[in-house]
Protein backbone atom coordinates (compact mmCIF):
# COMPACT_ATOMS: atom_id res chain seq x y z
CA UNK A 1 0.00 0.00 0.00
CA UNK A 2 2.04 2.93 -1.19
CA UNK A 3 0.90 6.45 -0.84
CA UNK A 4 -0.33 8.02 -4.05
CA UNK A 5 1.41 10.43 -6.34
CA UNK A 6 4.67 10.95 -4.54
CA UNK A 7 5.81 12.60 -7.75
CA UNK A 8 8.64 15.00 -8.28
CA UNK A 9 6.72 18.09 -9.33
CA UNK A 10 5.97 20.93 -6.94
CA UNK A 11 9.26 20.67 -5.12
CA UNK A 12 9.25 24.26 -4.01
CA UNK A 13 11.13 24.97 -0.84
CA UNK A 14 8.08 25.48 1.35
CA UNK A 15 5.23 24.00 -0.61
CA UNK A 16 5.67 20.24 -0.40
CA UNK A 17 2.01 19.47 -0.95
CA UNK A 18 0.67 21.74 -3.65
CA UNK A 19 -2.96 22.36 -4.54
CA UNK A 20 -2.78 20.11 -7.59
CA UNK A 21 -1.52 17.16 -5.65
CA UNK A 22 -4.05 17.69 -2.86
CA UNK A 23 -6.90 18.08 -5.37
CA UNK A 24 -5.97 14.90 -7.24
CA UNK A 25 -5.64 12.95 -4.02
CA UNK A 26 -8.99 14.17 -2.69
CA UNK A 27 -10.76 13.24 -5.93
CA UNK A 28 -9.16 9.79 -6.14
CA UNK A 29 -9.49 8.86 -2.48
CA UNK A 30 -12.95 10.45 -2.25
CA UNK A 31 -14.28 8.42 -5.18
CA UNK A 32 -12.79 5.17 -3.88
CA UNK A 33 -14.27 5.84 -0.44
CA UNK A 34 -17.60 6.73 -2.02
CA UNK A 35 -17.65 3.45 -3.96
CA UNK A 36 -16.87 1.45 -0.80
CA UNK A 37 -19.57 3.26 1.19
CA UNK A 38 -22.15 2.65 -1.55
CA UNK A 39 -21.29 -1.06 -1.69
CA UNK A 40 -21.57 -1.29 2.10
CA UNK A 41 -24.96 0.41 2.11
CA UNK A 42 -26.25 -1.86 -0.67
CA UNK A 43 -25.03 -4.95 1.22
CA UNK A 44 -26.67 -3.62 4.37
CA UNK A 45 -29.99 -3.15 2.54
CA UNK A 46 -29.76 -6.68 1.11
CA UNK A 47 -29.17 -7.97 4.60
CA UNK A 48 -32.18 -6.07 5.94
CA UNK A 49 -34.45 -7.42 3.20
CA UNK A 50 -33.17 -10.95 3.60
CA UNK A 51 -31.53 -11.78 6.96
CA UNK A 52 -30.08 -14.97 5.46
CA UNK A 53 -28.28 -13.03 2.75
CA UNK A 54 -24.55 -13.73 2.68
CA UNK A 55 -22.68 -10.52 1.84
CA UNK A 56 -20.25 -10.71 -1.06
CA UNK A 57 -17.39 -9.90 1.26
CA UNK A 58 -17.90 -12.84 3.64
CA UNK A 59 -14.74 -14.69 2.74
CA UNK A 60 -13.96 -16.37 6.06
CA UNK A 61 -14.75 -15.94 9.76
CA UNK A 62 -12.05 -13.27 9.99
CA UNK A 63 -12.63 -11.59 6.65
CA UNK A 64 -16.33 -10.93 6.84
CA UNK A 65 -18.62 -7.96 6.62
CA UNK A 66 -21.75 -9.85 7.63
CA UNK A 67 -20.64 -10.06 11.24
CA UNK A 68 -19.30 -6.51 11.27
CA UNK A 69 -22.24 -4.82 9.54
CA UNK A 70 -24.76 -6.17 12.04
CA UNK A 71 -22.98 -4.82 15.12
CA UNK A 72 -24.11 -1.69 17.00
CA UNK A 73 -20.76 -0.13 16.01
CA UNK A 74 -21.99 -0.17 12.39
CA UNK A 75 -24.60 2.40 13.39
CA UNK A 76 -22.45 4.46 15.69
CA UNK A 77 -24.56 7.59 15.41
CA UNK A 78 -27.93 5.91 15.16
CA UNK A 79 -27.82 5.74 11.38
CA UNK A 80 -25.82 3.24 9.31
CA UNK A 81 -22.20 4.38 8.99
CA UNK A 82 -22.22 4.04 5.16
CA UNK A 83 -24.70 6.93 4.97
CA UNK A 84 -22.15 9.16 6.69
CA UNK A 85 -19.53 7.75 4.33
CA UNK A 86 -21.53 8.49 1.20
CA UNK A 87 -22.12 12.10 2.22
CA UNK A 88 -18.56 12.60 3.46
CA UNK A 89 -16.68 11.01 0.57
CA UNK A 90 -18.87 12.75 -2.01
CA UNK A 91 -17.99 16.05 -0.34
CA UNK A 92 -14.29 15.14 -0.32
CA UNK A 93 -14.34 14.35 -4.05
CA UNK A 94 -16.16 17.60 -4.87
CA UNK A 95 -13.73 19.67 -2.80
CA UNK A 96 -10.89 17.88 -4.58
CA UNK A 97 -12.41 18.79 -7.92
CA UNK A 98 -12.80 22.41 -6.90
CA UNK A 99 -9.19 22.60 -5.69
CA UNK A 100 -7.95 21.03 -8.92
CA UNK A 101 -10.07 23.44 -10.98
CA UNK A 102 -8.19 26.29 -9.39
CA UNK A 103 -10.72 27.45 -6.86
CA UNK A 104 -9.35 29.41 -3.95
CA UNK A 105 -11.19 28.98 -0.70
CA UNK A 106 -11.49 31.38 2.18
CA UNK A 107 -9.74 30.41 5.37
CA UNK A 108 -12.95 29.41 7.17
CA UNK A 109 -13.62 26.86 4.45
CA UNK A 110 -10.28 25.14 5.13
CA UNK A 111 -11.01 25.26 8.85
CA UNK A 112 -14.29 23.46 8.15
CA UNK A 113 -12.54 20.94 5.90
CA UNK A 114 -9.96 20.30 8.61
CA UNK A 115 -12.68 19.75 11.21
CA UNK A 116 -14.41 17.32 8.83
CA UNK A 117 -11.36 15.21 8.00
CA UNK A 118 -10.29 15.20 11.65
CA UNK A 119 -13.69 13.85 12.66
CA UNK A 120 -13.37 11.25 9.89
CA UNK A 121 -9.93 10.05 10.93
CA UNK A 122 -10.86 9.82 14.62
CA UNK A 123 -14.04 7.92 13.74
CA UNK A 124 -12.14 5.55 11.45
CA UNK A 125 -9.58 4.77 14.15
CA UNK A 126 -12.34 4.08 16.63
CA UNK A 127 -13.80 1.69 14.04
CA UNK A 128 -10.39 0.07 13.51
CA UNK A 129 -10.10 -0.47 17.26
CA UNK A 130 -13.64 -1.89 17.45
CA UNK A 131 -13.07 -4.13 14.46
CA UNK A 132 -9.78 -5.52 15.70
CA UNK A 133 -10.26 -5.80 19.43
CA UNK A 134 -14.01 -5.81 20.11
CA UNK A 135 -15.69 -7.44 17.11
CA UNK A 136 -12.68 -9.47 16.07
CA UNK A 137 -13.35 -9.52 12.35
CA UNK A 138 -12.20 -7.56 9.33
CA UNK A 139 -14.67 -6.25 6.79
CA UNK A 140 -12.88 -5.78 3.47
CA UNK A 141 -14.96 -2.82 2.22
CA UNK A 142 -14.56 -1.12 5.60
CA UNK A 143 -10.79 -1.49 5.26
CA UNK A 144 -10.98 0.32 1.92
CA UNK A 145 -12.59 3.19 3.83
CA UNK A 146 -9.81 3.11 6.43
CA UNK A 147 -7.19 3.07 3.69
CA UNK A 148 -8.50 6.21 1.97
CA UNK A 149 -9.50 8.18 5.07
CA UNK A 150 -5.98 8.26 6.50
CA UNK A 151 -4.38 9.91 3.39
CA UNK A 152 -7.35 12.28 3.04
CA UNK A 153 -6.83 13.48 6.61
CA UNK A 154 -3.06 13.51 6.35
CA UNK A 155 -2.72 15.50 3.13
CA UNK A 156 -5.46 17.97 4.03
CA UNK A 157 -3.68 18.55 7.33
CA UNK A 158 -0.23 18.90 5.78
CA UNK A 159 -1.63 21.27 3.16
CA UNK A 160 -3.22 23.44 5.83
CA UNK A 161 -0.16 23.33 8.10
CA UNK A 162 1.99 24.79 5.34
CA UNK A 163 0.23 28.11 5.86
CA UNK A 164 1.63 28.32 9.37
CA UNK A 165 5.26 27.96 8.34
CA UNK A 166 7.25 30.83 9.72
CA UNK A 167 4.61 32.42 11.89
CA UNK A 168 4.71 30.16 14.93
CA UNK A 169 7.15 29.31 17.76
CA UNK A 170 10.25 27.43 16.80
CA UNK A 171 9.26 23.97 18.04
CA UNK A 172 5.99 24.23 16.13
CA UNK A 173 7.75 25.43 13.01
CA UNK A 174 10.15 22.51 13.20
CA UNK A 175 7.30 20.02 13.66
CA UNK A 176 5.53 21.49 10.66
CA UNK A 177 8.74 21.28 8.64
CA UNK A 178 9.14 17.61 9.48
CA UNK A 179 5.48 16.85 8.75
CA UNK A 180 5.56 18.61 5.38
CA UNK A 181 9.07 17.55 4.41
CA UNK A 182 8.49 13.90 5.23
CA UNK A 183 4.77 13.73 4.45
CA UNK A 184 5.09 10.53 2.42
CA UNK A 185 7.29 8.76 4.95
CA UNK A 186 5.03 9.64 7.88
CA UNK A 187 1.93 8.50 6.01
CA UNK A 188 3.65 5.25 5.08
CA UNK A 189 4.68 4.69 8.70
CA UNK A 190 1.11 5.35 9.85
CA UNK A 191 -0.38 2.89 7.36
CA UNK A 192 2.27 0.29 8.16
CA UNK A 193 1.46 0.62 11.85
CA UNK A 194 -2.20 -0.19 11.17
CA UNK A 195 -1.20 -3.10 8.94
CA UNK A 196 1.11 -4.40 11.66
CA UNK A 197 -1.70 -4.22 14.23
CA UNK A 198 -3.97 -6.15 11.86
CA UNK A 199 -1.23 -8.70 11.23
CA UNK A 200 -0.57 -9.15 14.95
CA UNK A 201 -4.22 -9.35 15.99
CA UNK A 202 -5.10 -12.09 13.52
CA UNK A 203 -1.68 -13.72 13.43
CA UNK A 204 -3.00 -17.28 13.84
CA UNK A 205 -5.39 -16.75 10.96
CA UNK A 206 -2.67 -15.49 8.61
CA UNK A 207 -0.51 -18.46 9.57
CA UNK A 208 -3.37 -20.82 8.83
CA UNK A 209 -3.46 -19.42 5.29
CA UNK A 210 0.18 -20.25 4.66
Amino acid at each position, binding site marked *: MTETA*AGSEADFAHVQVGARRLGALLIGAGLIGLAAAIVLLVEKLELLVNPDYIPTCDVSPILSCGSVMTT*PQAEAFGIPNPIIGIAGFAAVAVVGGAVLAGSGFRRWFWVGAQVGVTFAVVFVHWLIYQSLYVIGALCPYCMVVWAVTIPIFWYTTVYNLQHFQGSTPRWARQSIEIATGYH*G*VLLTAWVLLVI*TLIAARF*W*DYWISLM
Partner: protein
Amino acid sequence: MSKNLALSLALIGVVGLILAGMLVWNSQDESSPEAVGDEPTAQLVREDSPRLSEGEEAVFVEYLDFECEGCLALYPVIEDLRDKYGDRVEFVVRHMPLHDNSVNAALAAEAAAEQGEFEAMYQRLFDSVDQWGHQSTSQAETFVGYADELGLDVDRFRADVNDPATLASIEQSRQDAQAFGVTGTPTLFLDGQRLEPTSVADLEASIEAALND
Protein backbone atom coordinates in the same frame (compact mmCIF):
# COMPACT_ATOMS: atom_id res chain seq x y z
CA MET B 1 13.47 9.60 -6.80
CA SER B 2 12.35 12.03 -4.11
CA LYS B 3 13.46 11.44 -0.54
CA ASN B 4 9.84 10.83 0.47
CA LEU B 5 9.39 8.05 -2.04
CA ALA B 6 12.78 6.50 -1.32
CA LEU B 7 12.33 6.47 2.46
CA SER B 8 8.74 5.22 2.16
CA LEU B 9 9.79 2.34 -0.06
CA ALA B 10 12.60 1.48 2.34
CA LEU B 11 10.16 1.49 5.25
CA ILE B 12 7.70 -0.73 3.39
CA GLY B 13 10.54 -3.06 2.48
CA VAL B 14 11.78 -3.40 6.06
CA VAL B 15 8.34 -3.92 7.65
CA GLY B 16 7.29 -6.24 4.83
CA LEU B 17 10.41 -8.36 5.25
CA ILE B 18 9.99 -8.56 9.03
CA LEU B 19 6.30 -9.55 8.79
CA ALA B 20 6.93 -12.05 6.00
CA GLY B 21 9.88 -13.51 7.86
CA MET B 22 7.91 -13.93 11.09
CA LEU B 23 5.01 -15.43 9.18
CA VAL B 24 7.19 -18.05 7.48
CA TRP B 25 9.07 -18.74 10.71
CA ASN B 26 5.88 -19.15 12.76
CA SER B 27 4.12 -21.31 10.21
CA GLN B 28 7.09 -23.69 10.20
CA ASP B 29 7.03 -23.67 13.97
CA GLU B 30 3.37 -24.47 13.91
CA SER B 31 3.54 -27.29 11.40
CA SER B 32 5.97 -29.48 13.33
CA PRO B 33 3.84 -30.14 16.44
CA GLU B 34 0.76 -30.38 14.23
CA ALA B 35 2.37 -33.20 12.29
CA VAL B 36 2.62 -35.15 15.54
CA GLY B 37 -1.04 -34.30 16.04
CA ASP B 38 -1.15 -34.49 19.83
CA GLU B 39 -2.28 -30.90 20.46
CA PRO B 40 -5.02 -29.69 18.15
CA THR B 41 -5.17 -25.92 18.37
CA ALA B 42 -8.94 -25.62 18.22
CA GLN B 43 -11.46 -27.72 20.11
CA LEU B 44 -15.20 -27.77 19.71
CA VAL B 45 -15.60 -28.49 23.41
CA ARG B 46 -13.05 -27.87 26.12
CA GLU B 47 -12.83 -29.40 29.56
CA ASP B 48 -13.81 -26.14 31.19
CA SER B 49 -16.70 -25.40 28.82
CA PRO B 50 -19.89 -25.02 30.85
CA ARG B 51 -22.35 -27.94 30.74
CA LEU B 52 -26.11 -27.73 31.16
CA SER B 53 -26.51 -31.49 31.44
CA GLU B 54 -24.20 -34.46 31.72
CA GLY B 55 -25.73 -37.16 29.50
CA GLU B 56 -23.17 -39.46 27.95
CA GLU B 57 -24.65 -40.73 24.70
CA ALA B 58 -24.29 -37.62 22.56
CA VAL B 59 -22.70 -34.19 22.78
CA PHE B 60 -24.76 -31.15 21.81
CA VAL B 61 -22.87 -27.87 21.54
CA GLU B 62 -24.42 -24.45 21.19
CA TYR B 63 -22.27 -21.44 20.33
CA LEU B 64 -24.32 -18.59 21.72
CA ASP B 65 -24.41 -14.96 22.61
CA PHE B 66 -26.74 -14.07 25.48
CA GLU B 67 -27.77 -10.92 23.67
CA CYS B 68 -28.59 -12.49 20.31
CA GLU B 69 -32.23 -12.67 19.24
CA GLY B 70 -31.84 -16.06 17.62
CA CYS B 71 -30.31 -17.48 20.80
CA LEU B 72 -33.15 -16.06 22.86
CA ALA B 73 -35.67 -17.66 20.50
CA LEU B 74 -33.85 -20.98 20.77
CA TYR B 75 -33.58 -20.82 24.57
CA PRO B 76 -37.03 -22.32 25.40
CA VAL B 77 -36.46 -24.99 22.75
CA ILE B 78 -33.18 -25.97 24.36
CA GLU B 79 -34.86 -25.97 27.78
CA ASP B 80 -37.44 -28.45 26.45
CA LEU B 81 -34.78 -30.59 24.82
CA ARG B 82 -32.79 -30.64 28.05
CA ASP B 83 -35.90 -31.79 29.91
CA LYS B 84 -36.39 -34.57 27.46
CA TYR B 85 -32.84 -35.67 26.65
CA GLY B 86 -30.70 -34.16 29.41
CA ASP B 87 -30.07 -37.55 30.99
CA ARG B 88 -28.68 -38.94 27.74
CA VAL B 89 -27.22 -35.91 25.97
CA GLU B 90 -24.49 -33.62 27.20
CA PHE B 91 -25.55 -30.02 26.49
CA VAL B 92 -22.50 -27.78 26.23
CA VAL B 93 -22.58 -24.00 26.00
CA ARG B 94 -19.79 -22.09 24.29
CA HIS B 95 -19.48 -18.36 24.01
CA MET B 96 -19.42 -16.36 20.82
CA PRO B 97 -20.05 -12.82 22.07
CA LEU B 98 -20.96 -10.41 19.29
CA HIS B 99 -22.94 -7.64 20.98
CA ASP B 100 -22.23 -4.73 23.31
CA ASN B 101 -22.87 -6.52 26.57
CA SER B 102 -22.47 -10.10 25.49
CA VAL B 103 -18.91 -10.30 26.77
CA ASN B 104 -20.08 -8.97 30.15
CA ALA B 105 -22.92 -11.51 30.10
CA ALA B 106 -20.54 -14.33 29.20
CA LEU B 107 -18.21 -13.23 32.02
CA ALA B 108 -21.15 -13.25 34.45
CA ALA B 109 -22.14 -16.76 33.35
CA GLU B 110 -18.55 -18.02 33.69
CA ALA B 111 -18.13 -16.36 37.08
CA ALA B 112 -21.36 -18.03 38.23
CA ALA B 113 -20.01 -21.31 36.86
CA GLU B 114 -17.03 -20.93 39.20
CA GLN B 115 -19.56 -21.21 42.03
CA GLY B 116 -21.41 -24.09 40.36
CA GLU B 117 -24.32 -21.92 39.25
CA PHE B 118 -23.83 -21.65 35.51
CA GLU B 119 -27.31 -22.97 34.76
CA ALA B 120 -29.02 -20.49 37.06
CA MET B 121 -27.16 -17.54 35.57
CA TYR B 122 -27.73 -18.85 32.04
CA GLN B 123 -31.48 -18.92 32.68
CA ARG B 124 -31.47 -15.61 34.48
CA LEU B 125 -29.64 -13.86 31.63
CA PHE B 126 -32.04 -15.11 28.99
CA ASP B 127 -35.12 -14.53 31.14
CA SER B 128 -34.25 -10.89 31.75
CA VAL B 129 -32.53 -9.96 28.50
CA ASP B 130 -35.19 -7.34 27.80
CA GLN B 131 -33.87 -5.47 30.86
CA TRP B 132 -30.18 -5.51 30.00
CA GLY B 133 -29.96 -6.29 26.28
CA HIS B 134 -29.22 -3.82 23.52
CA GLN B 135 -27.89 -1.17 25.87
CA SER B 136 -24.84 0.79 24.89
CA THR B 137 -23.70 1.15 28.50
CA SER B 138 -22.00 -1.62 30.44
CA GLN B 139 -24.47 -3.82 32.29
CA ALA B 140 -21.79 -5.44 34.44
CA GLU B 141 -23.39 -4.06 37.62
CA THR B 142 -26.80 -5.46 36.63
CA PHE B 143 -25.16 -8.88 36.43
CA VAL B 144 -23.63 -8.46 39.88
CA GLY B 145 -27.20 -7.80 41.04
CA TYR B 146 -28.32 -11.07 39.44
CA ALA B 147 -25.47 -12.90 41.16
CA ASP B 148 -26.62 -11.46 44.46
CA GLU B 149 -30.23 -12.52 43.84
CA LEU B 150 -29.08 -16.02 42.93
CA GLY B 151 -27.39 -16.22 46.32
CA LEU B 152 -23.84 -16.24 45.01
CA ASP B 153 -20.85 -14.91 46.92
CA VAL B 154 -20.79 -11.43 45.38
CA ASP B 155 -17.18 -10.59 46.22
CA ARG B 156 -15.96 -13.82 44.71
CA PHE B 157 -18.23 -13.25 41.70
CA ARG B 158 -16.71 -9.81 41.12
CA ALA B 159 -13.20 -11.20 41.44
CA ASP B 160 -13.96 -13.97 38.92
CA VAL B 161 -15.56 -11.53 36.48
CA ASN B 162 -12.43 -9.37 36.65
CA ASP B 163 -10.03 -12.32 36.49
CA PRO B 164 -8.17 -12.14 33.14
CA ALA B 165 -8.37 -15.94 32.99
CA THR B 166 -12.18 -15.74 32.74
CA LEU B 167 -11.94 -13.38 29.80
CA ALA B 168 -9.23 -15.58 28.28
CA SER B 169 -11.55 -18.61 28.37
CA ILE B 170 -14.25 -16.62 26.54
CA GLU B 171 -11.71 -15.46 23.98
CA GLN B 172 -10.60 -19.07 23.61
CA SER B 173 -14.18 -20.07 22.97
CA ARG B 174 -14.52 -17.36 20.34
CA GLN B 175 -11.34 -18.49 18.64
CA ASP B 176 -12.51 -22.08 18.66
CA ALA B 177 -15.77 -20.88 17.10
CA GLN B 178 -13.90 -19.11 14.35
CA ALA B 179 -11.71 -22.14 13.74
CA PHE B 180 -14.84 -24.24 13.21
CA GLY B 181 -16.26 -21.71 10.78
CA VAL B 182 -18.87 -20.35 13.18
CA THR B 183 -19.71 -16.86 11.94
CA GLY B 184 -22.98 -16.23 13.75
CA THR B 185 -25.07 -17.33 16.68
CA PRO B 186 -26.71 -19.60 17.53
CA THR B 187 -24.62 -22.29 15.83
CA LEU B 188 -25.24 -25.87 16.84
CA PHE B 189 -23.13 -28.99 16.72
CA LEU B 190 -24.19 -32.54 17.52
CA ASP B 191 -21.40 -35.07 17.98
CA GLY B 192 -19.09 -32.75 16.09
CA GLN B 193 -21.42 -32.34 13.13
CA ARG B 194 -22.82 -28.91 12.43
CA LEU B 195 -26.62 -28.81 12.55
CA GLU B 196 -28.72 -26.54 10.39
CA PRO B 197 -32.22 -27.33 11.63
CA THR B 198 -35.15 -25.68 9.91
CA SER B 199 -37.62 -26.50 12.68
CA VAL B 200 -37.83 -27.75 16.25
CA ALA B 201 -38.96 -31.15 14.95
CA ASP B 202 -35.90 -31.22 12.73
CA LEU B 203 -33.63 -30.56 15.69
CA GLU B 204 -35.32 -33.25 17.74
CA ALA B 205 -35.03 -35.72 14.88
CA SER B 206 -31.27 -35.12 14.70
CA ILE B 207 -30.92 -35.82 18.42
CA GLU B 208 -33.07 -38.96 18.15
CA ALA B 209 -30.93 -40.15 15.25
CA ALA B 210 -27.72 -39.57 17.22
CA LEU B 211 -29.10 -41.46 20.19
CA ASN B 212 -30.23 -44.41 18.09
CA ASP B 213 -26.87 -44.78 16.41
